[in-house]
């Protein structure tokens, strides 16, 4: 367990005026930590949100808190659709969702080992091209222009794209194309996803998941760079 937890817990305790956890918990009392409170999540997202073997269950650890919070709100209202999560979040108030988002944002377990890519070098090169340069002729902006040159995202609400598995990335881009995932308007990712073909999606998903963990996986501070066009969840 990382050192962040007690600090994080102390912060939340102050915020919510809940007494700090004491060593002398009476027998059979639930530990007063966020870690205990999110056990209903970590069964799918892994301890500290580090991900599990299920390729569709995303890692949460270290993603920007604002991004995670936006996702929790989207699941709560059904704007983003995954029934088991829509159900769990239905009656949780906003300050609590924020506390959950902050908890997962502050966890930094190591990124998973990368699996060898299952696609050809040509496909990987196509993916790399789209991520780093885009394709102006087809109105596809470089993914890096928003997700950052090191692809670790930017505070408060642009997620990094590392440590995600190809199946998950493809499913998310597909969900935007078919409208089952939407973000706050203007939904820039919907525009981006709308220009991608099935082959593009496969290629970027494969290339992203082939990248090693960067030395510093933290998202860039807010305002480090300007987005090429507007995103409702991260006003420029």
């Amino acid at each position: 367990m990382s050192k962040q937890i007690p600090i994080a817990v102390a912060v939340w305790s102050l915020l919510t005026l809940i007494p700090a956890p004491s060593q002398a918990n009476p027998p059979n009392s639930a530990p007063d930590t966020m870690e205990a409170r999110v056990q209903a999540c970590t069964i799918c997202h892994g301890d500290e949100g580090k991900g599990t073997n299920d390729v569709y269950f995303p890692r949460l650890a270290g993603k920007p808190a604002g991004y995670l919070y936006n996702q929790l709100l989207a699941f709560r209202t059904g704007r983003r659709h995954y029934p088991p999560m829509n159900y769990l979040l239905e009656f949780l108030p906003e300050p609590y969702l924020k506390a959950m988002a902050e908890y997962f944002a502050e966890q930094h377990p190591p990124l998973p080992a990368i699996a060898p890519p299952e696609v050809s070098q040509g496909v990987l090169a196509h993916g790399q091209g789209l991520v780093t340069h885009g394709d102006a002729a087809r109105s596809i902006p470089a993914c890096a222009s928003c997700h950052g040159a090191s692809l670790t995202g930017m505070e408060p609400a642009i997620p990094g794209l590392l440590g995600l598995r190809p199946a998950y990335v493809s499913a998310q881009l597909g969900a935007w194309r078919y409208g089952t995932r939407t973000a706050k308007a203007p939904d820039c990712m919907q525009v981006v996803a709308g220009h991608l073909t099935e082959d593009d999606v496969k290629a970027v998903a494969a290339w992203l998941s082939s990248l090693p963990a960067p030395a510093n996986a933290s998202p860039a501070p807010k305002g480090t760079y300007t987005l090429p066009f507007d995103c409702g969840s991260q006003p420029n």
Partner: protein
Amino acid sequence: MLKVKILVGLLALAGAVPIALVVVSKQTAAQAQEQKSVAPASTISKGEYLARAGDCIACHTAPEGKLFAGGRAMPTPFGTLYTSNITPDPETGIGRWTAEEFYGMMHTGRSRDGGLIYPAMPFASYTKVTREDSDAIYAYLKSVEPVKQLNRPHDLSFPYNNRSLILGWRTLFFSEGEYQPDPSKSAEWNRGAYLVEGLGHCGMCHTPINALGGNSQSDAFKGGLIPMQNWYAPSLTSNKEAGLGDWTIEDISDLLRTGVSKRGAVYGPMAEVTYNSLQYLSDEDTRAMAVYLKGIAQDAAPDVAQPSVPPSEGSLLMSLGKTVYDQRCDSCHGAQGEGAPPHYPPLAGNQSIQMQSAVNAIRMVLNGGYPPGTAGNPMPYGMPPFAGVLSDNEVAAVVTYIRTSWGNRGAAISASEANQLRSAQLN
């Protein structure tokens, strides 16, 4: 116009709120609409409180929709109903309604034009609401932001799209009339009864549901499976089910208002009731409800539930169940099912998992859940969903184990019962 406003204001100051509103209701519709802010602030805030107690918001506000603009889908076995816009917009909402007409609808289940209203709008309970309380709710609704949004037509299959069928339902299940206090009981008991039977519309779920989707007076609060949702609302009158008879008043009111208690937590549709409605009620009112609920729980010893599997299979399930429990459940619910109340509910002696119907326990294991986050419990602890990690057989085994261990008197259940609930709608 100004004169009328002053007159109304004075009457209200003198405490004659109902009269003031009668004055308003005698105006023509157009005039009534112009004076939407005539009710004094105290009436409006009382109305807001009562609207909370009636949980109007849960049905009349769509997810991400505007407050009280309606349009929320209510799936029923006969098709989907869409709730009405009850904001004060004159064209699409209730802006042209008078207080009289509003009370008429709450009390008789007939719309302003005399048309019959579907009982999914709980007028069978709201009929018990007093004129004074109805007027306060009306005043509050007139004070919220008007939203222009046409009602979405219901999507009901033949013959249920014919409103005259409601007449049959009414004959069987509707008896019109305000709540009549029982003079042999305390004022607190009567207040609790008024809220539970009236605005709280608890009977809408806690009563056996018949083929028409209605519920009958004689079976009031006897429990039943909620159609479409696949949750079982336990009987509130029998200790065999919710078993409130041996709870303390404090535990019952904690459960209602905060969502957790030393005896159990709320989940499923009941979590919504606490989240949208009960958490906003005063200490006195939740206590009054608890006094009434404890009072109507009959002190019959629980029956022993009938197993749905042969005894040999039952004992195999028990040994597998113990393995699953020790591995997956005891970290929260304790080796002896003692839990860590109020956050991890006890399973030993928990009447709600021992009922004949095992639906709720199976669904908890499959879907997990968080009690609602409330003022009294802002950061609830959650239970993980096990649908993805346990087989049907393991679910049946662990549910059998918790229903029959530690002195619990529930019965074994089969893997097919667990399997059927995998497809239950989640929200």
